[in-house]
């Protein structure tokens, strides 16, 4: 097996002595993969995500991002350049109210030359579907545009991994669709690995793999069709299966359908039309 984008082994974390916010978490994310991490509030998904970006000091275990040890103080900037993070509230992560300045901040801060930083910012804005937005005021943008500016700010530093921490929960459905489209485009054009922490099961259903966190542990990991169709597993983790799965199981109980539950609307359509 080649080098993993993210490799976590036996990670434990306690915010307060005696608590177990992460318990022996191991996780591999392959280069180019889109992995959704789901779990109820307090299940440890954000804690895990912040470890990948070296935002939380590692207490126990090992995490490597494209081979870089996140616990090595000498590598912390290299880790953060390799793995960028988009947070829940776009307004909390802007450093400048001018879009172009905000997006160029990352590369400039990492020591890029002015010209290169501007070029990286322009390319990143184009990649998220906001070309030419450099002189716009971030506060005059919609929530979806703001979150795409935040994503561009991460992209401008050329990360190989992007972690999105509930990045759609503060924006409207149109904004969510815009952000998802921007992430798809970035993956297609740059082959970027994406770790997406979310409560949104419709979004998780579109991932390559879904990781379910429960009480600080990985309760399950697998293809969306396997994990999201397992109502008992999800309910045990305080989660609700996608509506399509619940509807399918109702139809199954009525004897109208058989076979594995589809997890997306498209899957339901082809299952019922097939």
């Amino acid at each position, binding site marked *: 097996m080649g080098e993993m984008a993210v490799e976590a082994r036996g990670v434990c974390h306690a915010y307060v002595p005696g608590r177990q916010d992460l318990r022996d978490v191991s996780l591999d994310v392959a280069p180019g993969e889109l992995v959704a991490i789901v779990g109820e509030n307090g299940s440890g998904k954000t804690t895990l995500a912040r470890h990948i970006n070296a935002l939380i000091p590692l207490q126990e275990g090992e995490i490597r991002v494209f081979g870089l040890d996140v616990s090595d103080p000498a590598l912390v900037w290299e880790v953060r350049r390799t793995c960028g993070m988009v947070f829940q509230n776009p307004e909390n992560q802007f450093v400048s109210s001018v879009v172009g300045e905000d997006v160029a901040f990352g590369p400039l801060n990492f020591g890029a030359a002015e010209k290169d930083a501007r070029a990286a910012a322009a390319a990143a804005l184009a990649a998220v579907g906001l070309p030419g937005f450099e002189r716009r005021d971030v506060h005059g943008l919609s929530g979806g545009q703001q979150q795409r500016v935040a994503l561009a700010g991460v992209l401008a530093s050329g990360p190989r991994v992007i972690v999105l921490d509930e990045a759609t929960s503060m924006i409207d*459905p149109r904004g969510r669709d815009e952000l998802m489209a921007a992430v798809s485009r970035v993956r297609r054009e740059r082959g970027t690995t994406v770790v997406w922490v979310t409560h949104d099961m419709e979004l998780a259903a579109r991932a390559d793999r879904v990781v379910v966190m429960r009480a600080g542990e990985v309760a399950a990991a697998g293809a969306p069709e396997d994990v999201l169709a397992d109502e008992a597993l999800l309910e045990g983790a305080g989660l609700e299966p996608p*509506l399509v799965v619940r*509807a399918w199981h109702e139809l199954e109980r009525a004897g109208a359908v058989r076979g594995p539950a589809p997890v997306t609307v498209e899957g339901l*359509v082809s299952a019922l*039309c097939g």
Partner: protein
Amino acid sequence: MRLTLEGIRLTYEGPAGERVAALDDVSLEVSGGVTGLMGQTGSGKTTLLEVMAGVTRPDAGRMLVDGAEASHGAGARAIASSVGLVFQIPERQFFEPTVADELAFGLLARGASGKEARERSAHALSLMGLSLDELGRRSPFALSGGQQRRVAVASVLATRPGLLLLDEPTAGLDPRARDACLAAVAAAAREGATVVMASHDANALASVADRVVCLDAGRVTLDGPARELLGNAALMRDHGLEAACAARAAAALRRSGVAVEGNPLTAEELARAVLRGRGLA
């Protein structure tokens, strides 16, 4: 409580000094039940809630509370004493050192005794699936995000507002916390409160709202029974909004030639609608 808005207008100053309409001739009456307020970011939902709460004065138009002018006298007093406004990200407004103090603050300010404040706080927290015995002595700032939101909503519910206004109360909550929050909102309406809830979450509104009002650029573009709006994927899409997930699935199935009866809003309703379409129910 009956709240009547007539021709409400409010403008902000734009970046170039121009006037931007936040609310443009909004006329609306709410009286009991749960009214969902939908619209894209910037459509005026939050401003409308602020006007309804009496914290933002419109430039033009009038607002009546049970028929009395809300801008002064008895109407203004009625609003001030019975409105409960849950702001977006309400946990940012915490200021007391403990959860118990945070919850008691609004009650004590309204003249409740210490004992009464404690009982009502405990009840409101339990509606949100939390326990005052467990959390009462903790700092509200040290709670998880989901707990903070529920404490913030409970602190408003504890005052038993006659007019309950909520701005995206379920954003960022996990399913369990979201269901508890929605159940508490529904319970407040059953107990007689008039509830207005702004939300992007069509599925959340589908579970509690009787009626849905949609805003676009400060104007009311749709106003009707929740099922007729949230269950109509094409109508909502035409207004740049999202219908309930079940309605979107039903629309996709119909486009592919699968017969689906009615306007389903939930998974169970979608399944029944498909069964009826096949003549099986």
